[in-house]
């Protein structure tokens, strides 16, 4: 009983399947594809297009390299400026950006008077910190920093005065700082006062100017890179006009048609970024010898910092993005213009 029931159900199922098969094999049936298949084929098409674009890049090595080189030069310029600024900042890092007042005392000031003067200044609310540098300490530091120790040995007596280094509490208000400097200058013990505020300010302003300049240049030249890629991809599209027409007529979506061009743009960007990094590296290697020589003549062991891993990643990723953006702009615009829509 049970067996025959199962048997009957089996036969029924088989008949149904056979009927479906018959229905499918007769006449025109719209071709359907499963969702999993679609996903796999979408990935497959991406892989295919990536490989094909890379292949196309190397089929015309001269033209591709030239385009990539133009992109590289456009990117290397602002990157080099940025790197130069970074090195400049490293070179002047000895000067911390804090304004400082140096009070040079009269050479024949009595030690007791100096001590009480220092105590008085320490109690001044406008001053955060006072450091006393005796003539002996000043001489020792000068010898160490300048490398001119032997010259000083030849002198009979220490030419350096005692110095008080003051750290003002209020660093922002330059008028107040100026007033403080004038007040100190009026004291009997003071020979002269140097407020190194202007120099520090100029240095920061100079660095800021350089940064703005390099940022502006980067924006302009990035725009240039996008235009270069747009033009290159436009030519690619023009060359494959017939193919695009056919693909559209057999039901290819605009995204499908666009895909290989996006990968081409990505290729140009990546190659351009890589070359830009190599250009930077070459530039730094070229300059590092003379810079090291110059530094050693100043008794410094300063060396030029080259483009690092971060620069490499930033340049290639940025360039790839620019390439992709340019390709997308060109493809969207020019593929739509090719009949049929």
């Amino acid at each position, binding site marked *: 009983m049970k067996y025959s029931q199962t048997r009957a159900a089996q036969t029924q199922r088989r008949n149904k399947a056979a009927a479906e098969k018959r229905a499918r094999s007769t006449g*025109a*049936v719209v071709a359907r594809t499963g969702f999993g298949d679609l996903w796999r084929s979408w990935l497959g098409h991406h892989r295919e297009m990536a490989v094909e674009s890379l292949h196309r890049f190397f089929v015309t090595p001269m033209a591709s390299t030239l385009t990539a080189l133009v992109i590289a030069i456009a990117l290397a310029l602002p990157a080099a400026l940025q790197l130069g600024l970074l090195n400049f900042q490293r070179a002047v890092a000895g000067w911390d950006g804090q304004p400082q007042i140096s009070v040079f005392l009269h050479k024949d000031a009595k030690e007791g008077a100096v001590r009480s003067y220092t105590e008085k200044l320490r109690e001044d609310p406008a001053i955060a910190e006072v450091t006393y540098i005796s003539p002996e300490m000043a001489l020792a530091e000068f010898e160490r920093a300048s490398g001119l120790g032997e010259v000083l040995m030849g002198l009979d007596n220490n030419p350096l005065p005692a110095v008080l280094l003051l750290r003002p509490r209020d660093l922002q208000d330059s008028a107040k700082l100026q007033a403080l400097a004038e007040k100190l200058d009026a004291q009997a013990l003071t020979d002269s006062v140097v407020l190194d505020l202007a120099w520090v300010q100029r240095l920061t302003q100079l660095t800021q100017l350089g940064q703005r300049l390099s940022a502006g240049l980067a924006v302009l030249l990035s725009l240039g890179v996008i235009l270069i890629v747009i033009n290159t991809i436009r030519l690619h599209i023009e060359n494959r006009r017939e193919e695009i027409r056919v693909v559209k007529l*057999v039901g290819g979506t605009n995204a499908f048609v666009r895909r290989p061009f996006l990968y081409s743009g990505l290729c140009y960007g990546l190659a351009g970024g890589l070359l830009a990094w190599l250009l930077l590296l070459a530039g730094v290697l070229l300059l590092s010898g003379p810079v090291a020589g110059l530094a050693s003549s100043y008794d410094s062991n300063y060396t030029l910092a080259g483009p690092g891993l971060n620069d490499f990643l930033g340049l290639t990723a940025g360039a790839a993005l620019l390439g992709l953006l340019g390709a997308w702009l060109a493809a969207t615009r020019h593929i739509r213009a090719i009949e049929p829509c």
Partner: protein
Amino acid sequence: MITFDHVNKRYASGQDALARVSLEIPRGDMVFITGHSGAGKSTLLRLLTAIERPTKGTILVAGQNLNRLRNHQIPYYRRNLGIVFQNHQLLSDRSVFDNIALPLSVTGCNRRETGRRVRAALDKVGLLHKEKQNPMVLSGGEQQRVGIARAVVNKPAILVADEPTGNLDSQLSREIMQLFADFNAVGVTVLVASHDLELVAYMRQRVLTLQEGQLIYDGVASREVLPN
């Protein structure tokens, strides 16, 4: 299957390429469209394949109103059509196999299924042994067969051909037409535009004749009743 209702197509130049054309093509029919060049054959096919939109009137294909088709839906609509061109539009940078596989690759068909269907299509047009060749080394008749294989590989419900025998001699033309008749026999609706009246008469199928954008004849043609 295909309905044109008072369809007008006016180009920017002000010329009416089609004027108030109404016609009805049932599912599974085989229909020829004839007329001199400039009579509106190509315009009719361009409207049917959604390359252009009508100025006035409605076109229904398999119950779908083409006027309501949005631009992004057009590729999906075209996947239900097989289109054969006069100059076959084969791509010279890839093999016969890859040319035929193109409509399958845009729909995202897997590799195994693609291979199976492409070979089935090649088998139907009798070129199974040429799948690895470049289409440019084939003869004109063979190239057109490849074009037909590409049009049918997706198993479309409708097959549209614009002057498919334009560059072929009469023997080859008849073979190509027989191929279309074979597809029609398994249920595909076939629409062929041709100016070769002799060939059309030989096929003894329904004929639509256009003249200056108007439908002037609709019936089964034999050589005697065809307008010259």
